[in-house]
């Protein structure tokens, strides 16, 4: 047996070597990134919520953040549609958040709301200034407005991905 392996060794090397080369970078451009650097750069949150940071919030806590940071455009009920004036707007009004026609009802995953609020709200120069716990609380508030979770249901990295959304993943 060992003799067979020895006989086959050159063949093994010959077949594995090109494969190994093909898998490495060929052009030596750009820099490899550490996992910490990737984490700092890439804040996208997928449906499984793997990237969600530590933190926690409830709708009750979210109401306070909402009143200060969100209600001017969305109203406390999420149905107020304040006309945007910034240049140039993508839509004439803040989107409807609550109710059957609201954007929350159309989302398939609660994690998408978290991602959206985290990177783009409050609209304007303040986007991205909410702390993770504030984002959890505001997400909980919006979910509660739509009757999806209770007022004191704590949202965090574990519970948020499990929130059953009315629009769910559509099956074909």
């Amino acid at each position, binding site marked *: 047996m060992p003799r067979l392996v020895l006989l086959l060794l050159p063949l093994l090397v010959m077949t594995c070597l090109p494969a190994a080369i093909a*898998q*490495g*970078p*060929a*052009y030596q*451009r*750009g*820099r*490899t*990134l550490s*996992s910490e*650097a*990737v984490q700092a*750069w*890439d804040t*996208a*949150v*997928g*449906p499984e919520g793997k990237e969600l940071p530590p933190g926690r919030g409830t709708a009750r806590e979210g109401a306070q953040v909402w009143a200060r940071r969100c209600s001017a455009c969305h109203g406390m009920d999420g149905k107020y549609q304040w*006309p*945007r*004036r*910034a*240049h*140039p*707007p*993508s*839509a*004439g009004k803040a*989107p409807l958040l609550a109710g059957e*026609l609201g*954007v929350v009802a*159309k*989302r*398939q*995953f609660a*994690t*998408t709301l978290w*991602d*959206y609020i985290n*990177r*783009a709200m409050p*609209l304007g120069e303040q*986007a991205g200034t909410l702390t993770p716990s504030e984002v959890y609380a505001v997400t909980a508030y919006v979910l509660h407005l739509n009757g999806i979770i209770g007022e004191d249901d704590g949202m965090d990295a574990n519970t948020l991905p499990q929130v059953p959304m009315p629009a769910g*993943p*559509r*099956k*074909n």
Partner: protein
Amino acid sequence: MSAKEHPPRQPRRRFLKEALAAGLAAGTVRPSYGQTPAPEEARSRPEENRGYGRRSHYEVVSRWPIQPKELTPGDPLYLVYAPSRTPLQDLRGIITPNPLHYFVDASSPYPIADLNPQEHRLVVDGMVDRPMEYTLDDLKLLPSVSRICWLECTGNGGLRERNHIEFHETLQKAHGATSCAEWTGVPLSLLLQEAGVRQGASWIYAEGNEHARRAKSFQLEKGMEDVLVAYAQNGEAIRPENGYPVRLIVPGWSGHNSVKWLRTVKVTDRPYMAKDDLGFTQAADGTWIGEREFDPKSVIAFPSGGQKLPGPGVYELHGLAWTGGGVIRRVDVTTDGGRTWKEAQLQEPILPRAHTRFRLLWTWNGEETVIESRCTDERGRTQRRLIDIREEYGDDPDHWRSSTSAGERFSGTQPWKILRDGSVHQAAYGPHMYPPPKATAALTKPTRKSPSGGGSTCLA
């Protein structure tokens, strides 16, 4: 500044040398790799000294609509929702000049992204062996590919583009959210190979660096096929509104896949549903079903709505045909409201996923008539006639669906009516709808004031 304040003109060679030295000195604005530093006079007033050319002042062709600096609640809704569209009826050949390429203001509600190419970074991460970071110069030093291909808004010709917000009499208003350019950049497949895609990966998530950081997922298979990480548009740097300094080009698919101002390409095993991803479906076995290429579509550009023929005589009728499924094989044209069809001549080059120009010589006898074009692609798929779509969905444009394409993009045929005075009119809907609608409802009047849903989703 008066002329006296200018230092006496220096010998040209010395001037160039100094400009070069100044440009390359540490701390100053350094040109991107391969870019020759411009002489100072070209930098200061390029439009005046023709260092960067401009068109004749007699030429007034323009994109539409022009968005005001600031919108007020009283402004018409088409200013709010509309992509800025290409004047297809006024262009020749297949290449859209950069200043006229359509765009959707994905930066909105912030000003269009103003990204410093020296600071911009592209990261490839997710299910890869080596997460990588590239500067624009890194990308320009990698092997490149050029592709001539069209981009088209996910909703072009769809509900919002019909008579909903503003009556769309012209080709530009009705179908102008498509353009065709030569894009140059690094194949996405090369960057993915450099990073080493891990087993089990099946999707790409791409994210832009504009203020709102829009994002879109599409299948890895498409990413390995013909997607470009582009930095050049018709030979020069990509225009800011089209994604400067680097963007994705996803040929043949709806525009919002071609993420502008690209900052992240993440390899994943499912559509990521982050931020702007919407509406993917899941098969019974759990696999995700994504979008696919657009259906074949064609429009006659001359004569088209809003134009006027000077009188009876011989005309060269021409237009554009395009498809997500490879090349256009043939275009047929009727000049008698669909009774007879003639095969049009296709202008070379006929390229996959590029606009294709067609022409047909035609003698107009001065009588009222309706003209319409219909195309077939290499997969044998033929554009659906509007009359058949009306048969299926009724005469109300609000109910029309044309295909299985993503979004509201309308792929049905586009009829134009020519009156005896030579004037050309929109005949798909409105007062000159042909054949006339069965119901006498006022179809030019919007039934709803604003389209449902949030903002526009296409990013091109």
